[in-house]
Each structure stands twice: as C-alpha cells, then as structure tokens.
C-alpha cells in the first residue's frame, strides 16, 4: 500500500495524482464534498455505477450535451425537409394526380426520421467527444487496485496539477475521510 512507487530514477514517469479507495458511495460523496470545500479543483471520482449527486459533490458543471442534441435534431429535420421541398418544387417537380408540389404533410415522416437520426448521432458522438473517447490509455489505470473501479471499487483522485496538491497532506485528509487505501501513482 501507500506511495510505494519508485521515484528514485530520474527518468521515471511523473506522478499523476493520488488515488483513494472507498468502500461505498456515501463515504465517497462525503469525501468528495469535503475535498471540494477544502478548495481542491483537479479532482475526479471513479465509480462502478452512476451515483447521483457525485458530480455536484465534486463540482462538475451540468452537461451541454442536450444543446448539442437539439442542434443535431434541428439540422436533421430542417435539412431533410428543405431537401424534399427543393426536390419537389425546383429540381424535379412532378404532378401526381394534381396534388400540390409542396405537399408538406407527406414530407413529415422523413423529416421526423431525419430529426431522430441526427439527434442520435449528436448524442452518441457528442458524448464520445465530451468524454474524449476513444482513449484506451489513461494514467488512472496505473493506480493500484483501479481495475475494481468497474466492479465494486469507489475511487477519488486528486491530480498533481491541483495548486493545493501536497501528497502527505492529501493522504492524511483522505484517510481521515474513510479511505481504505491511498496511493500515489505515476503517468
């Protein structure tokens, strides 16, 4: 346990941060709130399940993803509606039984499908973009025991880039908040 990573060699990778493991979500949320209130800003929690209130406890802002999806939906629906209108009025007008060229109710189903398709693209690829995916490698995977973050481990990480970062102080604070293991880990 503890900061066993060798820092002796000069060319050893730099320390990325300090990772604390908790046994359950309520301890984690409490710890995250305390750390946030202590003024830490480069903090992230890693959990096997979505935990409501955790992102506020850490201090993350609300996502802008819904706006992205709305934009996608508007582009998809107006794009296809406009396209069908252009085809039927300008590029290839065809008289079908004397019905008007601009028979917009008949355009509704395809407009709707275009809205759904482009919104879904925006939701999925927007999510990947915001999360920085695909990113198969990340320094937190080096933290000891981190493979349990996708099973039953609740983790809180303070990164060295945080202005308040002090390994010894952070460690004692995190242990005091109920962490079962606290380790520094490198990039």
């Amino acid at each position, binding site marked *: 346990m503890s900061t066993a990573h060798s820092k002796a060699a000069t060319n050893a990778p730099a320390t990325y941060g300090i990772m604390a493991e908790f046994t*359950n979500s*309520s301890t984690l949320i409490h710890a995250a709130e305390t750390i946030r209130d202590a003024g830490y800003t480069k903090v992230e929690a890693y959990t096997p*399940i979505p935990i409501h209130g955790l992102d506020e406890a850490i201090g993350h802002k609300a996502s802008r*993803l819904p706006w992205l999806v709305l934009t996608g939906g508007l582009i998809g629906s107006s794009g296809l509606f406009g396209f069908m209108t252009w085809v039927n009025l300008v590029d290839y007008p065809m008289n079908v039984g004397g019905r008007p060229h601009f028979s917009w109710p008949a355009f509704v189903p395809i407009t709707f499908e275009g809205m759904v398709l482009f919104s879904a693209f925006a939701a999925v690829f927007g999510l990947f973009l915001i999360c920085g*995916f695909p990113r*198969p490698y990340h320094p937190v995977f080096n933290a000891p025991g981190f493979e349990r973050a*996708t099973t*039953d481990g609740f983790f809180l990480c303070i990164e060295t880039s945080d202005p308040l970062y002090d390994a010894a102080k952070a460690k004692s604070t995190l242990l005091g908040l109920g962490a079962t293991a606290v380790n520094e880990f490198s990039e």
Partner: protein
Amino acid sequence: MQSSKQLKPPVTETYDSLLAPGQSLESVTTKISDIVLFPILKTPTGWLLGFIGAGLLLMLYLYSLATLFTVGIGIWGINIPVAWGFDIINFVWWIGIGHAGTLISAILLLFRQDWRTSINRAAEAMTIFAVACAGIYPLIHTGRPWLDYWFLPYPSTTGMWPQFRSPLEWDVFAISTYATVSVLFWFVGLVPDLATLRDRSTSRIAKALYGLFSLGWRGAAKHWQRYEVASLLLAGLSTPLVLSVHSIISFDFSVAQLPGWHVTVFPPYFVAGAVYCGFAMVIVLMIPIRRVFGLQGLITMKHFDVMSKVMLASGMIVTYGYFGEIFYSWYSSSIYEYYLIVNRFTGPYAWSYWALILFNVLIPQVLWSKKLRQNLPVLFFVSMAINVGMWFERWVIIVLSLHRDFLPSSWASYTPTFYDWSTYIGSFGLFFVLFLLFIRFIPMIAIFEVRDLVHKTTPHTAEHEESGHAGA
C-alpha cells in the same frame, strides 16, 4: 458441458423481487461476466450444438439468397394479384419482434421501470438481429438487390429523385434510421460493461479487444453524468422512433385502397401487435437462456410475470383490432369490405384466419391466471403460440386481402414454394448465429445496471461484505 454445470447454482425461484436476495456489486458482476470470460475451448457443448444448428440454417439462407439472385423472384410463389407474399410477411414479422427490445430499453427507461434491467441488453440484441433479418427482405424482394441504391436520394445522371411522398420511400428512411439508432443505443449501453470485461479478463487478446471497444471507459463521475444524459436523450428519441417505424410500415398498407388494408386503425394496431410478438420472442429466448446459464437469481419469475402482463395487455389491443375490422366491414356498407370478412371467415384461406384467432386471441387468455403466468412451460408454449399467431396475422393481412380484391376476374390464389420457406426458415439461422455469438462474447445482462439495482436496493454502507469502516 462441465463448465456450464459449474455455472449453475441450486435453483431457487424468486417470485416477488427482481433480484434474488443476498447479491452484492461484486457477485452480480462476477456472475454475468464469467459467462463471457471463460476460455474459448471450454464453451458449453449446448452452445456449440446450437451454433452448428444455426450455422446450417444460415447456409440454407445463403443458398436461398444465391438462388434468388441468380434466378430471380420467380422462384417464389408470388403472382399478380398476390405480389407480396412471404417476403413482406416475414419483413413485418421480424421487425415487429424487434420492437419489444426498443420498448424495453427506451420506453421503460423513461418510465423508470426497474424490471427492465436484467432483460434489456438481450432484448436490444434481439432487436438489432431481428431488424437485420427484417431489413434484408425489402432489399431482396426487389429481385435486383444490386440496384437497391436507387432507394436512396443521390444525385444521379438521370436527374431523378426517389418519390418522397410514397410510404415505401418513408420505409427506407424509417428502417435505416431504426437500425442505426438501435445499434448506437446498444453500443453506448455496452461501453461500461466492456470496460468491466477489460478489467476482469485474464487473456491478453480479450483484454485488448474489450479495451478497444470500451473506448477507455474508466467510470469517471463526469463521464457517468454525461453518459446518463446521453442515455436518457437516446431513450427519448427511440420512443417516438419505434412508434413511427411500425406506423410507417402500416402506412405501406393503409395508404392503399385495398379492402383489408385501407384502415385508419392500422398504426396503433400494428404497434400493439409488434409489442405483443416482441415480448413473446423475449420470453421464448429468455426461458432457455436463464436455465442454461443459471441466471435464475437475476432474471426472476417476477420478470416473466410482468412481461406476461404486457403481452396480455397488448394482446387485448390486437384483439380489439380484430373485432374492429369485423365492425368496419359491416359499418362501411361497402360490398368489397363486407366480402373481405366473408372471405376471411369462409374463404379458401379461412383456416389461417381461425388459426390467427386461436393463437392470438384464445390461447393467450390463459395469462389471466397468475399460476399459469408463473409456470414456465406454459408460458413458453403461449409465447410460441403468439409468435405463430402474429405471423398468421401478417399472412391474413397480406395474402387474404390481395388474393381477392375488387374484380373477381383478377382473383387468384397463393401457395408458398420451397424457396419461400427456405428463405424464411434460413433467416432464423442468421438470427440465431448472431444471437449465440452475442451471448458468448458480450454480457447478455447489463452489468452496470444490475449493479445500480443492487446499489439502490441495499443500504449504501453495505456494498462490501467487510463494510463498517467509514461512517457516512
């Protein structure tokens, strides 16, 4: 066989809860991921036999398609006036099956129904594979599938565009959107579970592959928050999408003037029928799977009870539709509409109409009994009956309406040929090959959602057995 036996716990059925008692985050994760992660050489014999059988059916399918492409659609039994036969019957049947998966994954997510959790992943997989089977029919029924790009709006040298005012063109957009969004929704749901497999697998190849497809998921709080927003938005988009897809498919019929097709009730009637048949297929797939893989603790009798109730409710809507059709034929005062019902009741294909009533209306009534709903052999039989019944429904709508329309001089009959049957039976090969690969390599139950259910239903400080440190 040995390895599959190891997976089996002593079977104790749970009737009143969605999870067997005593589950922890780790126990459910291990349980589900072990099904996927055991070594490839120790694959259960049952799975291998199933895969061989499905593979043979797939061969039959490929043979039928190859014959179709080389000879043409003359190998089928279709004719004029019955220009739509098995191709469109099976297209509508397959896509209807797919709708239950979207219903379970999207609509029940919006309604926050926890019982969807253990069955949504497999149901979504069923959706995608059923849509694949369905989507092939419109592509091949043209007889010249190499020209299918004509469906798409592309700037061509002829200067022509597809007819955007036709329901058949709406179909192109509806089905391609549905297939794309279903795959995206499914993949997004898989990402955290693939990360679990990446972290639990011991084989280097498995680690690399699951690592590749999990995109680097690490369960960060920020990612979870965005992830939940994206899931909710996708669910909100998929809900009207699934309703629109089957409504648009029903427009293929109801926009035509033909008696038996020209009915305003078709969209809700088709959607209810899709849900009915889709839930039946979920039950047919789940009963053997939970037995083979010992999942009685995760897919409990309560799941089957709830699914049976959905089936019963949608079955009653469908039944209402059947009575509605009889009523319109009388109320319309049209001799053609009236004759449609006479033909269904007493015509040359009356046996298929009465089979439809037997399978879809009469047999499912046993689901009123709680005791029979929770009897798996009975439930399996009823679900199979519903699948057959819904197939007959599409048969009745398509063949019985087409073969005798307005002019008796143009009446004809329709008999499916060997290739009609082989293309249909072969499509099960495609479905089951894909489904068996899915249950072997991808967690068939959404692990993180089950963990979430465990988390919600247990006190928050007791997630680990060794809890006690840390007072929150």
